[in-house]
């Protein structure tokens, strides 16, 4: 009866109530989408590299090594000699390793030299391999595989001839040795999308006539001659390492960090990612702060709406009282209303969020490389909903207690 009449009462105020529900739904949806974006950004971020146990680089800070080896941000301070790399590679603990060589670029996109193991070993987002969507992995010395974003932004197709520039931002091109696009990678949502990948030999090849970062004047070795040269890498920038047993990670890490021949660093990607996220996580906290303010505003808004309807409902309360309802029932009716309003709002906000995410997901993925996982409701969302409903009812206690006093003092006197 109480529930039926409360529904009837809400229905009689359909316009106000539905606008309230809509307003609350929108703010809840805003909160949920900010929250979703926040967690998706974090997941996208930590998903950049997975199932790699150690990253090897020259002596540097762990975050810097992570930045240049995984995110292609900044530069390596030093290279690693192939001999050191080989020695580490041959350690018993090491199951696999992939060397990479960085330093050149193409139209603002980083060029990374590596071998074909990269495509077999480098994993992202919970163990996914990098797949090729068009063409093939590099086969010829001057073949290049490009990330999805590179292909899209520069509108490159298979067979396109490209020139690699020396350094990250320079006007010196390796224009004597043009490359050919042999493959385009699937979109990954990681920095791989923005990378131009060549073989380690190709990196050596384009630097044949170079010494200490500058072109040797007058020297120009013909391509045919270069093809016949020994182009095995003498230096690499970093390497990804997988171990046979996770138990040996720290032992190997310590061994590398104490390697006497060369100053090296090895990091655990997961730990470094977490450290880095803590630095850029200020943005995360900001988003969280905004979300909380939004929820708070919503709750106050709802209390205000219940409050403003209270005066016009004093008569209704008097009728309830005359029928024998105790003041507690009057409070109960208002709380029940708050419950219905907030419950409906959580339902509607989930539906709105679902629609919004479906519309925005491709765009966010394209623009920011953040893949939003659309799922119905996570346990966390449900918990948030329950907390919201409880807070809504607590907030509605303020007008409800006022109604309680009204109903005690009004008694038979009906005020309009």
């Amino acid at each position: 009866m109480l529930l039926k009449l409360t529904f009837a009462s809400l229905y009689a105020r359909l316009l106000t109530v539905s606008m309230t529900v809509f307003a609350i739904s929108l703010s809840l949806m805003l909160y949920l989408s900010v929250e979703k974006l926040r967690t998706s950004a974090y997941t996208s971020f930590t998903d950049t590299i997975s199932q790699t146990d150690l990253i090897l680089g020259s002596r540097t800070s762990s975050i810097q090594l992570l930045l240049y080896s995984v995110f292609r941000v900044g530069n390596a301070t030093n290279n690693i000699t192939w001999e050191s790399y080989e020695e580490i590679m041959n350690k018993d603990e090491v199951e696999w390793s992939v060397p990479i060589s960085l330093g050149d670029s193409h139209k603002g996109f980083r060029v990374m030299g590596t071998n074909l193991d990269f495509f077999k070993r480098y994993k992202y987002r919970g163990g996914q391999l990098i797949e090729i969507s068009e063409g093939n992995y590099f086969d010829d010395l001057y073949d290049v595989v490009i990330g999805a974003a590179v292909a899209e932004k520069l509108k490159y197709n298979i067979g396109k001839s490209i020139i690699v520039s020396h350094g990250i931002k320079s006007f010196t091109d390796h224009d004597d040795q043009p490359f050919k696009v042999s493959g385009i990678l699937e979109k990954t949502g990681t920095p791989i999308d923005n990378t131009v990948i060549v073989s380690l030999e190709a990196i050596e090849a384009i630097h044949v006539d170079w010494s200490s970062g500058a072109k040797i004047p007058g020297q120009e070795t013909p391509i045919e001659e270069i093809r016949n040269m020994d182009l095995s890498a003498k230096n690499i920038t970093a390497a990804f390492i997988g171990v046979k047993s996770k138990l040996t990670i720290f032992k190997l890490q310590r061994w590398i960090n104490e390697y006497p021949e060369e100053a090296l660093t090895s990091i655990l990607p997961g730990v470094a990612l977490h450290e880095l996220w803590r630095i850029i996580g200020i943005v995360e906290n900001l988003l969280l702060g905004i979300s909380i303010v939004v929820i708070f505003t919503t709750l106050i808004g709802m209390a205000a709406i219940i409050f403003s309807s209270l005066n016009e409902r004093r008569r209704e309360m008097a009728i309830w009282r005359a029928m024998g309802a105790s003041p507690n029932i009057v409070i109960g009716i208002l709380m029940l209303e708050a419950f219905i309003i907030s419950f409906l709002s959580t339902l509607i906000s989930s539906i709105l969020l679902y629609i919004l995410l479906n519309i925005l997901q491709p765009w966010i993925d394209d623009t920011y490389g953040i893949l939003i996982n659309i799922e119905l409701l996570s346990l966390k969302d449900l918990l948030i909903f329950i907390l919201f409903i409880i807070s809504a009812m607590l907030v509605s206690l303020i007008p409800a207690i006022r109604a309680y006093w009204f109903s005690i003092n009004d008694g038979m006197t009906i005020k309009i």
Partner: protein
Amino acid sequence: MEKSNLNADTIRIDSVKFHWSNKNDFKIYVPEFNVARGEKVLLLGESGSGKTTLLSLICGFLNPISGDIFLNDEPINNLSARKKDQYRCDNIGIIFQQFNLLPYAKVIDNILLPLYFSKKRVENIKDQKETAANICKSLRLPDEVLNMQASKLSVGQQQRVAVARALIGNPSLIIADEPTSALDKNAQSIFLDLMFSQISESRSTLLMVSHDESLSQRFDRVINLDDILKEGD
């Protein structure tokens, strides 16, 4: 505990004093006022004379500062707030001047509302909906009205629904606060005819408040409020 004394007064007020703590210097003092069981009493008084305050005291909405109020020999001012609410819905049917009904609820739900709070009144009837329909029929409310929203009814019809609600489950006391003031003369007399025949049938006690002396001949007793209210300190 049922009191079986047939001669007991439905209402007995003994030296009741009351004043609002927050409002000016309005105060009332009722040395003595009794209404016998089954009696129909009209209280005459101008607005602002303390009629509503007196009714609120009798209904247990307000507590006297001193003195006693007995309903069916039970001193209700000694009851806890919760018991007072329960006593009210078990024993008193209330009819306001106007806007008696929850406007958004169906007529039938409005009529059955007191039964939701009072087991005692539920026990007095067999079939709730049938009883409601019967009362409505006697009050000349068309059948289809039962399932209409209360706000869709005319004022006269709404007042008759209020009577039906006050009477359902046979409470011993009906309190009416100027129930006809929103009706025109013709509707007034139809309304009163119907209300009186129903109340007589249910043998309830009626205490009605009005400023209209022309209603006097219908009642067993007419009391001027000024006669029972005494200025006291």
